């Protein structure tokens, strides 16, 4: 025996050592020089898997049932093959989402479901409690074992009588110590995402001690007490040939089904036991460490298991085949043979195994309890304190202690009766229940919250019934009749032969039924339900966690590079000006800014990402992406208004996620530029679906009828509410909304005020409704209405805000559509003008007739707006010429066509008609009907000149009077003759006059574009100035005279172009 004092002192010293190491590691971390952030420490800390259950229990198992202790280590070795894509994925996700526990992981995956988090926490606590009890049991039992007299632990001794008086409870003291240690290193700070380096360092050291102690004991027993492996096997098989099944598989003790079940359970539990998850995932500091841990961790397990069978068989040999104390052979054999120091080392190793497990487990569980059970209650109670962090950290500390003492309680009540391995496996099976929800969630997009929750709950219920209940029965807690006869005496419900499934060991039986219900419900319900939006989003993030992030590499140019300020403006709309500026200066910090004060083009994509992330913090990831993409796509267009509308809403931050998403979705529709009717229908559809309105209607003002006319309608058919027009009157809610340009609503139609509306509303069974004016540039143009039959009080202040914004978006869509309409109209007009212009220019003479003694020139300068100016020279006979100038009112194709007709008429008839007066008369008669029906008229001046006689005959139909500049007198004459404008009166007689021209005389024909050209003061150019110009430039040829006149007119108006068409014809007699 070893003195109690010595064992206690060494234990406390060892405890102190652990504490120092942990403290040192924490200090190093604070100094920024981490000692635990390397793959050796990571691999060692993973060996927290190796608890006192396996430290002692493996040998016991090997001695009693044989090789079935191995699957517990072979399973983890196998699953380690998958770590590079399974564990690494979990680590990546946890880091990105700031996940702090396995409950957090499950809840995050399924849309941050608080319910799932709580379910996982409760099950984890219940499932792990036996396991903690087991550790306490091992430590206290080995302590007693070490300190009792040697003869009391000899072969055949079943009952250990502790040397300590009964009032000292070793297990209690151990629980206290472990709890305190957990508090010291697991709950010093509140930030759970902060890694606990001190704890990890202590665990790693413990793992080292464990393996050294166990291998030392193994080597001592194998080579000290025996002559190596072969010696042990030989002696065992000679002495106990009937126990050769211990070295074989497939017998009654270790069936293949059990072998498989245990492998599977171990594979799952090494991943999903809360403490394994904590150490492997949360405490991982670098993904690269996983790669080495993939072989180091299995190697550790191999080394420690190498000696399990020799120790077990050696123990049997030395204990005359007695398995009563097989669980503690490792400790007992050195003790029996008087190697007390070795026994003490083994005790410390076993103590390390227990302590490590309890500390990590209690920290992990208390984090889960705090976050998923206590926190929701605190939030619900709305504890009003400036800072509740002090309260929270203390709650976490209490949680750690509580978890340890729950284990202690379990140990006191149940623990003594069950073998170590059995208790451990119950917890393993509990951890395996998390596997479907987690693995399914990592690789299966369709997995839903409902599926995960039901699967978990069913799995745990079956686990409880098929494993925990039998363990209660065995410890005498429950009546054993349940085991034999089943619940309510139904044989089908026997816990170990559920639904009549017999012939299996307890583990395979439980594994089959738990997984049957767990996986079955998970898959079936997931297939039947749809993941919610947030769930889908989270799920995609989890599933695609390891995919290379394309946006990181994508550095393509954004066309039309936006400026930094544009991004700032965009952010300002959502997070406020101050925050936006702070964010951007933070971002720019040390980045390169070129000389123009803008970012290099390659920085822009990352600025875009930054903006997206910043927005995501306030509106969620998906809307942020939509906003950014739409913004960039529509930048500089009128769609920016849509974003202005967002801004006013999101700034309030009170709107729910669902409501915001509706707003973003509708904005996307407006920005899509689809057909107006499609946009309106889509928006109404969205409202009906998302807010469960029974009817949504858009009515627009019809200017002619002065009523509101239904433009789009979705939901139930109601001829009155949904289809009929509305007068603009203050008697109805909709009229009021339009006329006052404000939202009107009735949240409970039992208290409706306007009698005109009440009747119809009640008839249709409407419970609540609202109307919001649709405006363009602030002026109402229509009303957006929503009706609900079921929900009263739906129009809260916040919802009305949203409703108003939807109406505003409809307004933007309308305005966009109208602008587009106008644009199309203008384009068509322009096209028409072009046609008219082509016709007009095509009518003008391309050739000037060659008549001796005459020099002619004519020019038409079309203005922007096409006119109906026209001039022509017609040579009917030799030395004979007709000149005409005309102006058709109206500036369209019609005018141009009339002009073309006129020209054709003149060309055809001029030869046969004797004089200008008759020609005019004929034109007037011929075109009168056409001109009156098209509301057009023509002014025209027609001259006929006989070059031989130098005789000029002319007639006028209301045109500007041509000028004759007489070379002899150097002054002007106006040619005038009576006559009405063409197209005013059917029968008109046109006066015909004549004059004779002398050589040196000049004739000028012009249209009103010249004389009515205005200067800046509004004065007309007039014919006086024309006359002067004719005199001034009389020596120039006709072409040059025209040039001079046009230049002078341009000078006069001070502009290069003319407002109206300008036409000039000059004839010089020589």
């Amino acid at each position, binding site marked *: 025996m070893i003195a109690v004092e010595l064992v206690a002192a060494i234990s406390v010293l060892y405890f102190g050592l652990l504490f120092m190491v942990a403290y040192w590691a924490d200090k190093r971390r604070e100094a920024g020089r981490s000692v635990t952030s390397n793959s050796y420490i990571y691999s060692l800390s993973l060996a927290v898997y190796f608890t006192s259950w396996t430290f002692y229990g493996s040998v016991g198992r090997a001695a009693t049932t044989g*090789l079935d202790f*191995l699957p517990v280590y*072979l399973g983890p*070795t*196998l*699953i*380690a*093959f*998958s770590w*590079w*894509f399974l564990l690494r994925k979990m680590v990546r996700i946890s880091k990105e989402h700031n996940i702090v526990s396995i409950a957090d992981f499950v809840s995050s995956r399924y849309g941050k479901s608080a319910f799932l988090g709580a379910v996982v926490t409760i099950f984890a606590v219940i499932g792990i409690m036996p396991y903690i009890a087991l550790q306490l049991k091992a430590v206290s039992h080995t302590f007693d074992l070490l300190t009792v007299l040697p003869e009391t632990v000899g072969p055949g001794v079943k009952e250990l009588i502790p040397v300590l008086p009964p009032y000292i409870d070793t297990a209690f003291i151990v629980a206290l110590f472990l709890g305190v240690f957990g508090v010291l290193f697991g709950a010093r700070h509140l930030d759970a995402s902060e890694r606990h380096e001190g704890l990890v360092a202590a665990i790693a050291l413990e793992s080292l001690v464990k393996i050294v102690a166990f291998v030392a004991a193994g080597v001592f027993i194998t080579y000290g007490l025996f002559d190596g*492996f*072969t010696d042990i*096997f*030989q002696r065992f*098989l000679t002495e106990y040939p009937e126990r*050769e099944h211990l*070295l*074989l*598989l*497939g017998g009654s003790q270790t069936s*293949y089904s059990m*072998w*498989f079940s245990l*492998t599977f359970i171990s594979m799952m539990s090494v991943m999903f036991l809360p403490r394994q998850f904590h150490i492997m995932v949360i405490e991982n500091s670098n993904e690269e460490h996983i*790669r*080495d841990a*993939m*072989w180091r961790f*299995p*190697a550790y397990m*191999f080394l420690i298991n*190498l000696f399990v*069978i020799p120790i077990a068989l050696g123990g049997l040999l030395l204990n005359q085949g007695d398995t009563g104390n097989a669980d503690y052979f490792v400790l007992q054999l050195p003790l029996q043979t008087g190697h007390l120091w070795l026994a003490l080392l083994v005790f410390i190793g076993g103590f390390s195994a227990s302590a490590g497990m309890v500390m990590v487990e209690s920290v992990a569980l208390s984090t889960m309890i705090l976050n998923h059970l206590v926190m929701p209650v605190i939030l619900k109670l709305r504890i009003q304190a400036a800072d509740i962090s002090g309260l929270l950290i203390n709650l976490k500390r209490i949680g750690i202690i509580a978890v340890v003492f729950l284990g202690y309680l379990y140990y006191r009540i149940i623990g003594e009766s069950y073998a170590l391995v059995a208790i451990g496996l119950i917890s393993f099976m509990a951890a395996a229940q998390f596997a479907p929800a987690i693995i399914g969630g990592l690789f299966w997009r369709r997995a839903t919250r409902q599926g995960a929750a039901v699967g978990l709950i069913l799995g745990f219920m079956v686990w409880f019934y098929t494993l925990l209940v039998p363990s209660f029965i065995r410890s005498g807690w429950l009546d054993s009749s349940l085991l034999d006869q089943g619940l309510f005496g139904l044989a089908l419900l026997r816990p170990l032969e559920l639904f009549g499934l017999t012939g299996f060991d307890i583990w395979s039986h439980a594994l089959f039924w738990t997984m049957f219900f767990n996986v079955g419900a998970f898959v079936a319900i997931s297939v039947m339900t749809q993941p919610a939006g947030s769930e889908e989003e989270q799920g995609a993030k989890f599933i695609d966690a390891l995919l290379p992030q394309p946006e990181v590499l994508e550095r393509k140019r954004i066309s039309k590079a936006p400026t930094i300020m544009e991004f700032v403006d965009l952010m300002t709309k959502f997070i406020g000006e101050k925050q936006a500026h702070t964010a951007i200066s933070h971002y720019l910090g040390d980045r390169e800014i070129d000389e123009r004060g803008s970012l290099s083009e390659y920085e822009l994509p990352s600025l875009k990402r930054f903006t997206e992330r910043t927005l995501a913090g306030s509106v969620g990831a998906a809307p942020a992406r939509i906003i950014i993409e739409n913004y960039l796509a529509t930048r500089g267009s009128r769609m920016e208004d849509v974003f202005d509308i967002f801004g006013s809403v999101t700034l309030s931050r009170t709107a729910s996620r669902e409501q915001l998403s509706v707003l973003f979705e509708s904005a996307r529709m407006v920005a899509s530029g689809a057909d107006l009717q499609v946009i309106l229908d889509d928006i109404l559809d969205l409202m009906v679906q998302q807010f469960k309105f029974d009817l949504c209607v858009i009515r627009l003002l019809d200017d002619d009828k002065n009523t509101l006319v239904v433009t789009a309608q979705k939901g139930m058919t109601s001829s009155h509410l949904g289809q009929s027009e509305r007068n603009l009157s203050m008697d109805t809610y909709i009229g009021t909304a339009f006329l006052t340009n404000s939202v009107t609503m009735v949240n409970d139609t039992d208290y409706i005020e306007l009698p005109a509306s009440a009747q119809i509303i009640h008839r249709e069974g409407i419970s609540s409704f609202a109307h919001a004016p649709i405006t363009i540039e602030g002026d109402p143009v229509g009303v957006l209405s929503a009706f609900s039959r079921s929900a009263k009080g739906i129009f809260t202040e916040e919802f009305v805000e949203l409703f108003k914004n939807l109406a505003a978006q409809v307004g933007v869509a309308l305005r966009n559509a109208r602008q587009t309409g106008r644009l199309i109209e203008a384009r068509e007009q322009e096209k028409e003008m072009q046609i008219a212009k082509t016709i007009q220019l095509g009518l003008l003479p391309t050739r000037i007739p060659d008549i001796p003694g005459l020099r002619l020139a004519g020019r038409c300068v079309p203005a922007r707006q096409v006119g109906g100016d026209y001039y022509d020279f017609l040579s009917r006979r030799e030395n004979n010429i007709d000149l005409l100038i005309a102006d058709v009112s109206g500036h369209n194709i019609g005018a141009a066509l009339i002009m073309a007709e006129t020209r054709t008429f003149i060309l055809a008839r001029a030869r046969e008609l004797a004089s200008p007066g008759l020609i005019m008369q004929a034109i007037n008669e011929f075109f009168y009907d056409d001109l009156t029906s098209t509301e057009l008229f023509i002014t025209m001046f027609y001259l006929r000149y006989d070059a031989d006689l130098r005789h000029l005959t002319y007639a006028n139909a209301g045109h500007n009077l041509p000028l004759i500049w007489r070379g002899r007198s150097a002054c002007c004459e106006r040619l005038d003759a009576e006559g009405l404008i063409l197209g005013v009166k059917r029968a008109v007689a046109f006066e015909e006059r004549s004059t004779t021209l002398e050589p040196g005389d000049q004739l000028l024909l012009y249209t009103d574009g010249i004389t009515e050209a205005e200067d800046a003061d509004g004065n007309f150019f007039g014919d006086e100035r024309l006359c002067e110009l004719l005199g001034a430039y009389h020596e120039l040829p006709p072409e040059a005279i025209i040039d001079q006149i046009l230049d002078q007119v341009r000078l006069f108006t001070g502009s290069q172009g003319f407002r109206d068409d300008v036409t000039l014809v000059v004839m010089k007699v020589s």
Partner: protein
Amino acid sequence: MNVHLKEVWVLFFLLGVIMLNYPFVQIFNKDVLVFGFPLLFLYFMVGWPISILIVFLFSRNMQQRREEDRSGEEKEKPGP
């Protein structure tokens, strides 16, 4: 390369599951001593380290390739 790696790991995993279970294990499940060791014990205690060795070799190879990739990338980067 990554896809290829993943497939190899899955293959190893499946191979491990097969070699650890019925009926494969049945081959070694015989009441025979080889070099003084029970055959099944020997199978596990030799097969296990071999599988660890494979993972070790493979992960080392993976690391080397990754480092080569990295140094390759650095070489490709143009100078300032």
